[in-house]
């Protein structure tokens, strides 16, 4: 059954579009500036950029404003915008060891070189509504900023350009599973899922790219399933870091050029690796998560799923196809919402088939001379047909 287009209703569609704008504006509250949205809805902006797969804070702010705070639709907007632009450059590989760290913690080790840095987080405070925000003013903002700066003790250290990684320590100690040098070339091939349709099993590069642009809620749900019992994940955060990383490209002369920095969240998940034989040496294995912006839930979930998809097991989180297709936010959002569009012809077709099947059975029953009572469905269907023949 193909799709059949409908026509008509242009005025109603136009009015519906204006009405949604009216809903946004009818209170006549002061319009939000893009700068306000960008700076005060940091988490929403970062989520939209990650799921929209486009690092563009101002445009993400515009999208968030346009769609009244819905991150799913905002990410959709950003991906659509991305599709209008030419890709002119490929960056050199990000050096996350040179991240300008804002937050860096390890659940595996109490002491890490450079120390654990909590950074900007609400993790260690009680989640209570702050009613003071309801009466926030320019004055209170200024006062807060003055306070925080007056209490600040300037560090004698210049900001470092590199923090060593916890994973390096595990590697040094031989605890992590050694890299398989003989791994099939296909598995290590660098794939761009925006240019090449993937087939399963997909190379790990495709899986990591898809997870990096996946929807946060979907990733969290599947990662949670593997921790809760539908899988064998017992993850520990080797290191979680948030900060800015420099981006460089080669210009037309072939010179390496710094073009700016992006905020990313990176997570290395460490978990035990089951060995097949009793004589095999046990190792820890690593799952890797990296995404645009400050989005710890996503980076952690990505690390867990990166690991679980490489383990042969029967649970959803172990299936690459299941994980990657169902965490793709734009597709799942689009497919779910397409159900709202008219499906009159397909639904009619279904009803026709149902009615014909019932009619055939009635005829068979009559021919067989059977005296079966009418079913509820049969009765209701006939009543509906009698009452509103145009519906059927």
């Amino acid at each position, binding site marked *: 059954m193909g799709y059949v287009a409908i026509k008509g209703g242009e005025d109603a569609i136009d009015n519906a579009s204006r009405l949604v704008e009216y809903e946004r504006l009818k209170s006549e509250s002061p319009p939000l500036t893009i700068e306000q949205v960008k700076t005060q809805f940091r988490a929403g902006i970062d989520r939209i*950029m990650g799921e929209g*797969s*486009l*690092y*563009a804070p*101002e*445009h993400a702010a515009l999208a968030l404003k346009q769609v009244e705070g819905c991150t799913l639709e905002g990410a959709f907007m950003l991906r659509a915008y991305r599709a209008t*632009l030419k*890709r002119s*450059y*490929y*960056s*050199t*590989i*990000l050096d*996350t060891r040179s991240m300008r760290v804002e937050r860096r913690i390890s659940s595996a*080790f*109490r*002491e890490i*070189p450079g*120390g*654990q*840095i*909590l950074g*900007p987080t609400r993790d260690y405070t009680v989640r209570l509504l702050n009613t003071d925000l309801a009466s926030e003013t320019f004055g209170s903002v200024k006062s807060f900023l003055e306070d*925080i700066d007056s209490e600040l003790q300037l*560090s004698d*250290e*210049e*900001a*470092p350009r*590199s*923090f060593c990684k*916890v*994973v*390096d320590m595990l590697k040094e*100690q031989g605890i992590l599973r050694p*890299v398989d040098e003989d791994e099939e070339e296909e598995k290590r091939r*660098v794939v761009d*899922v925006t240019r090449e349709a993937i087939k399963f099993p997909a190379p*790990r*590069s495709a899986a*990591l*790219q898809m997870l*990096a642009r996946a929807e946060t809620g979907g990733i969290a749900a599947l990662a949670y399933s593997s921790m809760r019992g539908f899988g064998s994940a017992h993850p520990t955060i080797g290191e979680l870091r948030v900060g800015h990383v*420099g*981006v460089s*490209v080669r210009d037309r*002369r072939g010179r390496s*050029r*710094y*073009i*700016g*920095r*992006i905020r990313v969240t990176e997570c*290395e998940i460490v978990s035990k690796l089951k060995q097949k034989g009793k004589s095999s040496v046990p190792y820890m294995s690593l799952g*890797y998560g*990296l*995404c*645009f912006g400050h989005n710890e839930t996503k980076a952690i979930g990505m690390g867990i799923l990166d690991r679980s998809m490489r383990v042969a097991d029967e649970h959803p989180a172990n299936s690459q196809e299941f994980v990657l297709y169902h965490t793709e936010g734009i597709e799942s959002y689009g497919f779910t919402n397409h159900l709202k569009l008219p499906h009159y012809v397909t639904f009619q077709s279904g009803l026709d088939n149902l009615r014909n099947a019932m009619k055939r059975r009635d005829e068979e029953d009559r021919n067989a001379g059977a005296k079966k009572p009418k079913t509820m469905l049969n009765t209701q269907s006939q009543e509906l047909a009698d009452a509103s023949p145009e519906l059927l």
Partner: protein
Amino acid sequence: MRASSFLNKEVGDCFQKMEYDTDYILCECPLEPLKALVEDLEKVHEVKIAKEPSVCLTMVRAEDSLEKQEFFLGEALTTECELSVDGMSGYGLCLGEDPTRGYCIAFIDALVIGGVSDERIDRFLREQAEAIRERETLDFSRTLSTRVDFKLMEED
């Protein structure tokens, strides 16, 4: 488990400091003084635009920490500009939609690569490098104020 061998390293060993290069300064400095500098330089140099500042995409490449598996993280909005100053070509690139900065970077790139020595540019780069360093030290101090030393309960 203690991270014995690793922790024996001094914290300083784990930090690497990097000098700022011209592009870093031009991308990270505030726009207004950069714009003012280029407007000043425009008075004595002839500029021909080869490619107006416009937006494009940069695909950001990344790799995992252990296996070095490369993958594409996503794209970043980028502004690019090409021009020539007194016949010397320059390329300006920066993240975001920032045509003024893209133009200014291309302008200064042309002069710097062309070997033009101008005290105004040198002074600007020195001053801005210092301002960036101060700002980053301030940011780092705020970050360091949240450094924590977790203790096990039995240690108390």
